[in-house]
């Protein structure tokens, strides 16, 4: 099983025979290519075509982030799993209004269930979250009555808004006041953490999609325009509460991330280098943590759970088994 290479420093990434080399001011670091599954580039990196062909041959996707840690794009090597059958099924489910709506509804339902679970968890620990909980539940219960994608997206947005209002109660830390969701730029620390975490989740799901027969450009809830990846956004909704939010709560509660880990720029607030390192470490740990999977009858990591989710979607598209989203069990 490979690892993920996070490049935070600046320099040159290149191929040297059959290894990857990162050259920085501090010297050369070698990474055996067999051990690398995907690369995430945060620093200013020079690279050439020779490296890209090597990465294609080794089937390693590369995700790029800008100066602020926002996702820019992915070098997605030529598809290595290809099934004409599966792509046609995926397109069929996209084009058929009923089938698309049904699948989109399943994504939203899974997302809302997991939001509810997080709130429930903290409510059980004495936090006054009754209103938030019932608000999420009421949005979830009306999903069956919604008959277009826009309405589903809206319900999801409203449930999430209610959910975010729980953040201040859960975190209870003036340094990490939530206030409201602000994306570009994030206006406070908690928003910066959410944005960074979501970017990481989108790319993690995309990397897993690369190992399946699904086409990442055909999403069901998020609009497809065949230029951008969107299936990963659909699947990410299910896992945000379990992965991103959980990491944030834990980092803040344990004071592993503090105000000094952010820098203020152009009205926005962003994680600085140290902050990113801390976040990435916790992120990797979270993805590697395991739980007992009832179908496989063994422990699987959350990263693997993302892959399994994609397999379930494949089976849904094949018409074999209706997709039931991953449920947090706390």
């Amino acid at each position, binding site marked *: *099983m*490979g690892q993920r290479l996070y490049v935070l420093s600046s320099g040159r990434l290149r191929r040297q025979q059959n290894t990857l080399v990162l050259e920085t001011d501090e010297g050369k670091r070698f990474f055996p290519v067999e051990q690398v599954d995907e690369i995430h580039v945060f620093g200013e990196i020079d690279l050439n075509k020779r490296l890209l062909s090597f990465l294609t041959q080794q089937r390693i996707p590369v995700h790029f982030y800008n100066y602020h840690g926002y996702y820019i794009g992915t070098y997605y090597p030529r598809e*290595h*799993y*290809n*099934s*004409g*059958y*599966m792509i046609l099924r995926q397109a069929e489910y996209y084009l058929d209004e009923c089938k698309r709506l049904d699948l989109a509804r399943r994504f939203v339902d899974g997302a809302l269930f997991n939001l509810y679970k997080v709130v429930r968890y903290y409510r059980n620990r004495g936090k006054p979250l009754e209103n938030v909980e019932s608000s999420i539940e009421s949005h979830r219960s009306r999903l069956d009555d919604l008959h277009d994608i826009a309405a589903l997206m809206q319900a999801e947005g409203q449930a999430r808004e209610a959910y975010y209002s729980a953040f201040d109660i859960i975190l209870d830390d003036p340094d990490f006041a939530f206030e409201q969701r602000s994306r570009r730029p994030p206006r406070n620390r908690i928003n910066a953490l959410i944005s960074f975490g979501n970017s990481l989740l989108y790319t993690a799901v995309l990397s897993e999609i690369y*190992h399946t*027969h699904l086409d990442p450009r055909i999403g069901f809830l998020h609009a497809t325009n065949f230029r951008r990846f969107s299936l990963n956004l659909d699947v990410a909704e299910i896992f945000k509460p379990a992965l991103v939010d959980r990491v944030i709560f834990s980092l803040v509660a344990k004071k592993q991330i503090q105000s000094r880990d952010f820098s203020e720029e152009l009205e926005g607030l962003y994680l600085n280098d140290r902050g990113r390192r801390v976040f990435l470490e916790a992120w990797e740990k979270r993805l590697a943590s395991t739980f007992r*999977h*009832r*179908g*496989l*009858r063994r422990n699987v990591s959350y990263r*693997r759970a993302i*892959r*399994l*989710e994609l*397999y*379930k979607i*494949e*089976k849904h598209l*094949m*018409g*074999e*088994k209706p997709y*039931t989203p*991953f*449920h947090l069990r706390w």
Partner: protein
Amino acid sequence: MSDRITGTLIWYAMICEREVWLMAHEIEPDRDDARLEWGRFLGEMSYPRSRKREISLSGMRLDVVERRGTRLVVGEIKASSRFVEATRMQMLFYLWRLREMGVEAEGELRFPEERRRERVVLDVDAEARLAEVLARVETILEQPLPPAAKRIRYCRACAYREFCWSDEED
């Protein structure tokens, strides 16, 4: 006969019918699976001294093709003899295909890790058994859905296990 049938499908037909359907629909198993990698490696690294050549014909990839005197021998390399009956059937399929092309050959199963070889000949009896399997594969391929997942001993070692058992409620 459908030309979608390959040696690999015959092999799978002896073990798991679901695998046959998935394979035929290009839903390949997880290529990072350690056992698959091991099999590929073994095929490449075994018998360095023999003048083996891998030959690809439609629906078959012959690991080894050798001429021994007047006889033509095709070999199939496997990591273990655990599924020897499936491997025999796969070989019979190759021999039968070759015969259709006007080439008479005999087969040899090779298990390098066990230092063992086994001869396979396409006689009348074998041909009847093969015909039965071929018919079964045809039936599977005609189905719109894959045969349902069933827990068998092989699941534990199968590269499709996560695909088949990804649902939580089972």
